[in-house]
């Protein structure tokens, strides 16, 4: 029995030219303490399915699922008050653009203390002390001073650390990270991934990592779901996926990696899909 169980999730958007299916019958389960990577290219619906869980989709989206449960509770049937108890506390999320995720008008300290006061009912003094602890836990240099800094005074990597501190403030059981390192330099990416993996182990929380980067998958995941055009192509543990990919799309993605180039040309996904189609 997984922590999060999603069965046959479909998300449709009403557009000017008719209905568009972004997610088409996806199943996702994640167990306690597990790292699941959802990998796909743009338009694969990898973010949309998790935004549906978080209730962050606009009104134009129609969400249907046979099952959508977290810890045995049906997410789709929760009242607004119950949903607020769950989302942002037990399930939290971080996004791709750390600087855009923070409010530019408030100090980072104010923003993390707000979460602590509103979600956990701490007093101002308690919140300040806990905020400092959290800033230390995510490795922000000079944490006392940084509590009084505005987002624009910090680098992208530091802002992502602040976002992570906010996300783990309530000791969630599930953290969803949507392309957390895509906007960051490769050396900073390594630091942030190492931090996420350390926190995941320390807190025993489940981590869903949404990414387009096969390298990130290889370095973090226990299990991998590959998505393409709203459909699940393949699901496997990380080693089997890289060692023996079953689905043609997965094989195509792996062979399109420049480091796997054999000879002068890179095979492209379209060559691959065409080739498989003729078999």
């Amino acid at each position, binding site marked *: 029995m997984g922590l999060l169980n999603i069965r046959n999730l479909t998300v449709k958007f009403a557009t000017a030219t008719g209905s568009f299916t972004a997610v088409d019958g996806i199943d996702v389960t994640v167990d306690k303490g597990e790292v699941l990577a959802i990998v796909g290219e743009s338009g694969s619906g990898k973010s949309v399915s998790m935004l549906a869980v978080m209730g962050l989709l606009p009104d134009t989206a129609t969400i249907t699922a046979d099952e959508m449960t977290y810890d045995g509770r049906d997410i789709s049937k929760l009242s607004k008050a119950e949903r607020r108890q769950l989302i942002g506390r037990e399930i939290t999320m971080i996004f791709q653009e750390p600087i855009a995720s923070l409010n530019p008008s408030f100090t980072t300290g104010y923003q993390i203390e707000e979460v602590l006061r509103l979600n956990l009912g701490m007093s101002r003094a308690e919140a300040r002390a806990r905020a400092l602890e959290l800033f230390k836990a995510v490795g922000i240099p000079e944490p006392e001073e940084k509590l009084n800094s505005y987002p624009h005074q910090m680098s992208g990597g530091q802002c992502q650390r602040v976002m992570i501190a906010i996300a783990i403030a309530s000791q969630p059981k599930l953290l969803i990270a949507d392309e957390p390192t895509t906007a960051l*330099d490769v050396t900073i990416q390594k630091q942030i991934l190492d931090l996420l993996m350390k926190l995941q182990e320390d807190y025993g929380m489940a981590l869903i990592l949404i990414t387009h980067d*096969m390298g990130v998958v290889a370095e973090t995941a226990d299990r991998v779901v590959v998505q393409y055009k709203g459909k699940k192509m393949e699901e496997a543990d990380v080693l089997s996926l*890289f060692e023996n990919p079953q689905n043609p799309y997965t094989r*195509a993605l792996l062979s399109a990696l420049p480091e*796997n180039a054999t000879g002068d040309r890179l095979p492209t996904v*379209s060559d691959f899909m065409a080739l498989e189609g003729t078999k």
Partner: protein
Amino acid sequence: MSGSTPTTTPVVEGRAIVQDYHVPGSMFARAKTVRALKGVDFKVEKGKTLAIVGESGSGKSTLARVIALIDAPSGGELLIDGEKVDISARRPGPAMRSKVQMVFQNPYGSLNPRQKVGDVLMEPLIINKPEITASERRERAEAMLAKVGLMPEHFNRYPHMFSGGQRQRIAIARALMLNPSLLVLDEPVSALDLSVQAQVLNLLADLQDEFALTYVFVSHDLSVVRYIADDVMVISKGEAVEIGTREALFADPQHAYTRQLFAATPVTDVEAIRARVAKRKAAKALA
């Protein structure tokens, strides 16, 4: 493969290139000067690819803009085909502009949304080669569309009707309209999906073979660099910390910063994954 055959004149050569940016003062801050490039030397032989690798703020795009004759450097010398070029003294004429062209990172920002693809391609000819007749311009633009893998019917469409990969093809086509000898590519595949990235890299390799193009390829992605480069320059904080052939640099990185970059780059090697999974299982069993 190594670019160390000094018998021919390099297509582009930089000697101690320095670039300063002046940040004007404001109510809150004093004016200051930022030295973005601290004396960079390089040269690229005909038909070769020099990759410039670095992280944000390293000065790699600043260098690309200097090489593409967009910004005049504050110091040092830039030579194109052995001829010294100083754009601060005299604007480069059509002949020089035709030699050096640039492709930018973001194909959504680098194409004018109000301009049809055909006009995008014909504009460089109108400006730099006005002697070419309208019908010939059109022929050349259509031929170039085919070269980069687009269809003749795309000629009259607007950029928003294309995907990211197709737009980058259009940007490459525009850069090639003047038959340049040197193409400066600033992160040309960074905004693209993996599968589309592979197609564009293949296209660049084909075009290089066909037109004997010389590339300066700016990237932050070591796996792309390893695939496309002949020579690699690693740049950090405005200094070229290491420069060498691809084989030498990847086999035996000398500078600490290069090694740090390599260590941070995720590996998709099966043995590495096996080791990581085993380590994680052991840690879980202990807990």
